């Protein structure tokens, strides 16, 4: 097995792929999961614990006239019914969002989306809490809703956020990046310009475990313990301190095993706050776990971007510029979970993997009467939308130029010698070597043979499509000077302690939702210190147990926390050198490192292993001045740049000409995430993301009717791929390490979710070429594909 390494790895990184620390390793977390001994939120039972349930609005836009809780309160098992009015008295009716807006915890003035939180019942058991919801009588005064984002800025459109003083319309922001004039000049002079509206519909991460919390407020010492399904426990603690006024040192956020997150568990939801209020009011622990409909209808959706794309090129296929204007539907509150200073996330990576002369985009965010959210579902802060746009546009250009879409991409890639590459929207791509990845995917697919097969099938009237996409992500935020969440810089901490017998514990600030942190981070320490991964425990998720950091989302765990862990291990290694020198009665500079031990240069038999040094540190050896008696260290890692994973994907579909049904026959994914820590886990991350892609491309949409009723409020309507809809994935890889990351790793968590939807849609549009179809929007359900074949392709509702 050889790997493509055009860029030399960081010398300190060792040899990527060498199976000492790095390499395929069974996961340390699996033994508990396969025995049913995971500890998820709903598994937590505290003495005297009560159960909360939320009454939700049945309508999308209505003034709240009255709430009568008398009957509910009379229920023998009900201990409290909390309404917006009660929260107003506590100054908790509104809470700040991660995007500098506010969101209602419970409705006080009017309902702004169907499923919004109206009242909270606390009862002795979950069945009684649900029963009591039926006993609450609410009167609404209906208002006309704004459902279609295209109508949100119409003159006279109902103003959704009349709670914000002085607001007269539904515009949240206008944001632009790139040089508009320069881009216009390039477009004006270009041989070929193509334009297409590209819609990325509203979808939902829908992890198998819904969101929930168990709040336990101790009135004696004012301490709040909050078990939460959160991907970002430290950021949550700080926000609760600010919002609820509980001193930060009195708050413990503990995120247990998480049953999938995908960005769904980054934000702070009203249910979490209500569990806290419920515990304060009743003096007992309160559990709240949402049901599936609540999850789909009220927690963070993803995407919902209407993108007007334009691409300019020479007639021989040199891409010159990309331009887009975007209408972004943010729902009723601007609660996107992303760096606060970037209202469209990292959408500005829409320049893709191509060497462009110019690029420009403008994004307008609007309020609608729909659930808030927008940044979730493994989107890398809107890289998903950016990659989908540019990869659809490149395909549309290929069709216009009658060029092969793979050849067009190969012709326009940023060349290896151009890295680090400064694109036209302000990113500096750290490293890349695109052509080998593209060529490998084509080789694996048997690209030429597939094209021949397609021609033969077309002659027989069969619809076969081959779709190509090539993506470049930008992940791993910070640097903290550029990226923060409500002022908290996007850095992560790590603490490492080597115990006297050479076993170690590393504490990290990010939180796994299934990515295998307990294994991957142990492998990084193992690689750096030369002690086996099974001797290293990884502690995460509990703010009382771990150093501060911003958490797991945007594929940032390995790029940021992975850097922190490598550096803290090196700090320990450096310290070990001084202690080993004292033990060997020599000078530190006379020692040489080999994996796991310091030894005397020229005398390899005279050395001390990390375990021996750890015992020495805690033992009786006289230590040099400035070296204290332990083998511990801590760091906070502020990455100097983001990382830029990339990949080449090829999808083969067969479309049933009679029904419009799409079958994904093959999917070939070549990923380059830099240095590979655990290939098994990496492959698993890719497989999962590819399945997301099939879901979004073929099935998934959060749809609404004209009155704002959510039409996708259960798994009967929100369809997710099963084993029957996805092929056996074919994966490959190249290795182009990040030059600035301590171990050269770039992150892999979201690559496939980002890269696969355009490959699938490109394949479908390719299959439908005989029908003259040049574009269709997701989801490509049989009915929608069939309509496209009749020349009636339309945007999704």
């Amino acid at each position: 097995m050889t790997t493509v390494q055009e860029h030399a790895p960081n010398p300190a990184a060792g040899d990527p792929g060498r199976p000492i620390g790095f390499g395929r390793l069974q996961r340390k977390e699996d033994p508990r999961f396969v025995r049913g001994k995971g500890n998820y939120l709903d598994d937590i039972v505290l003495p005297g614990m009560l159960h909360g349930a939320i009454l939700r609005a049945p309508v999308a836009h209505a003034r709240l006239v009255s709430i009568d809780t008398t009957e509910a309160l009379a229920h023998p098992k009900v201990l409290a019914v909390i309404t917006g009015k009660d929260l107003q008295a506590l100054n908790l009716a509104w809470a700040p969002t991660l995007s500098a807006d506010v969101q209602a915890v419970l409705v006080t003035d009017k309902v702004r989306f169907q499923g919004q939180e109206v009242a909270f019942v606390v009862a002795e058991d979950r069945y009684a809490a649900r029963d009591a919801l039926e006993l609450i009588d609410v009167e609404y005064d209906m208002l006309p809703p704004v459902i279609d984002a295209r109508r949100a800025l119409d003159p006279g459109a109902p103003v959704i956020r009349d709670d914000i003083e002085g607001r007269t319309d539904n515009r949240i922001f206008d944001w632009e990046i790139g040089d508009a004039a320069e881009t216009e000049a390039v477009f004006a002079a270009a041989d070929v310009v193509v334009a297409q509206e590209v819609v990325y519909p509203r979808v939902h991460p829908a992890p198998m475990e819904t969101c929930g919390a168990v709040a336990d407020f101790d009135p004696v010492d004012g301490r709040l313990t909050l078990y939460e399904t959160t991907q970002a426990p430290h950021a949550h603690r700080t926000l609760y301190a600010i919002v609820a006024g509980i001193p930060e040192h009195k708050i413990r956020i503990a995120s247990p095993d998480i049953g999938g997150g995908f960005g769904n568990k980054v934000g702070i939801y009203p249910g979490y706050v209500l569990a806290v209020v419920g515990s304060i009011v009743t003096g007992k622990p309160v559990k709240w776990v949402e049901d599936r409909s609540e999850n789909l209808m009220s927690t963070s959706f993803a995407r919902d971007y209407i993108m007007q794309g334009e691409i300019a090129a020479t007639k021989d296929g040199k891409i010159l510029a990309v331009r887009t204007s975007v209408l972004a539907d943010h729902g009723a509150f601007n609660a996107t979970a992303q760096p606060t200073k970037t209202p469209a996330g990292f959408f500005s990576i829409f320049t893709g993997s191509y060497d462009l002369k110019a690029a420009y985009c403008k994004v307008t965010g609007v309020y609608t009467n729909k659930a808030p959210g927008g940044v979730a579902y493994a989107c890398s802060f809107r890289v998903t939308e950016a990659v989908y746009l540019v990869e659809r546009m490149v395909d549309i250009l290929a069709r216009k130029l009658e060029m092969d879409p793979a050849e067009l991409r190969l012709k326009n890639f940023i060349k290896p010698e151009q890295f680090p590459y400064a694109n036209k929207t302000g990113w500096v791509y750290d490293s890349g070597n695109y052509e080998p990845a593209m060529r490998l995917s084509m080789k694996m697919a048997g690209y030429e043979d597939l094209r021949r097969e397609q021609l033969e099938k077309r002659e027989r009237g069969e619809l076969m499509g081959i779709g190509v996409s090539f993506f470049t992500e930008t992940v791993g935020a910070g640097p903290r000077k550029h990226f923060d969440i409500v002022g908290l810089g996007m850095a992560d901490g790590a603490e490492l302690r080597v115990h006297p017998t050479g076993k170690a514990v590393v504490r990290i600030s990010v939180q796994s939702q299934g990515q295998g942190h307990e294994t991957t981070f142990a492998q990084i320490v193992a690689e750096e210190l030369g002690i086996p991964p099974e001797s290293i425990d990884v502690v995460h998720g509990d703010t009382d147990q771990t150093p501060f950091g911003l958490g797991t989302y945007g594929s940032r765990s390995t790029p940021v926390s992975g850097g922190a862990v490598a550096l803290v291990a090196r700090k320990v290694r450096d310290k070990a050198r001084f202690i080993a020198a004292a033990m060997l009665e020599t000078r530190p500079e006379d020692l040489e490192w080999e994996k796991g031990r310091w030894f005397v240069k020229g005398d390899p038999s005279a050395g001390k292993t990390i375990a021996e040094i750890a015992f020495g540190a805690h033992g009786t050896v006289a230590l040099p001045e400035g070296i204290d008696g332990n083998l511990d260290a801590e760091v906070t890692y502020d990455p100097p740049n983001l990382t830029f994973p990339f990949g080449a994907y090829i999808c083969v579909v067969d479309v049933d000409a009679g029904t419009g049904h799409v079958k994904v026959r093959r999917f070939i994914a070549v990923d380059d995430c830099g240095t590979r820590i655990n290939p098994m886990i990496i492959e698993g991350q890719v497989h999962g993301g590819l399945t997301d892609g099939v879901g979004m491309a073929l099935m998934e949409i959060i749809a609404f009717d004209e009155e704002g009723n959510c039409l996708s409020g259960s798994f009967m309507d929100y369809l997710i791929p099963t084993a029957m809809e996805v092929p056996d994935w074919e994966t490959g890889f190249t290795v182009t390490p990040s030059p600035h990351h301590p171990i050269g790793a770039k992150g892999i968590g979201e690559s496939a979710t980002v890269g696969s939807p355009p490959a699938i849609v490109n394949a479908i549009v390719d299959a439908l070429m005989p029908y003259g179809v040049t574009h269709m929007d997701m989801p490509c359900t049989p009915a929608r594909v069939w309509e496209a074949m009749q020349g009636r392709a339309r945007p999704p509702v």
Partner: protein
Amino acid sequence: MQVSMTVNGDKVTREIEPRVLLVHFIRENLGLTGTHWGCDTSNCGTCVVLMDGQPVKSCTVLAAMADGHDIRTVEGLAVGGTLDPVQQGFMEEHGLQCGFCTPGMMLTARALLDRNPHPDDAEIRQAISGQICRCTGYATIVRSVQWAAAHPLGAQAEGDAAGAEESTSEEVTA
């Protein structure tokens, strides 16, 4: 009302409300939290348990309907401290990530292998098609079940060094 059933070989009897779902009975009355809940509508299958050897979605079965029946949950997969080959297979082939759907997937796999010890990939996919995994993309679940089929006595019984065997993964590089 009173219900009695056998759960993982033990006879249990509890006084419950007639409306209590089997999933809540298992989780809350018996404290066996390895069985999960995910959707309310029988679509996701995280709540699958075996009733008389057949997979059922315990969110759509009343505890009362299980009266007199034999229930097996994930906690009953390992026998005498030895993991079921299916459990071993999921660890060997990375058939799980967040672990939430895993108990249901493993129980369905166990039921499949009990009636068809050598399923092909399509039969495995068919067997788990009523269950959703949001993490793995299913291919590694299929491999995990195939591992179990190939090791009916498990790794230890056959003297395999766990983890030392070559993976069935076929990743390609340039």
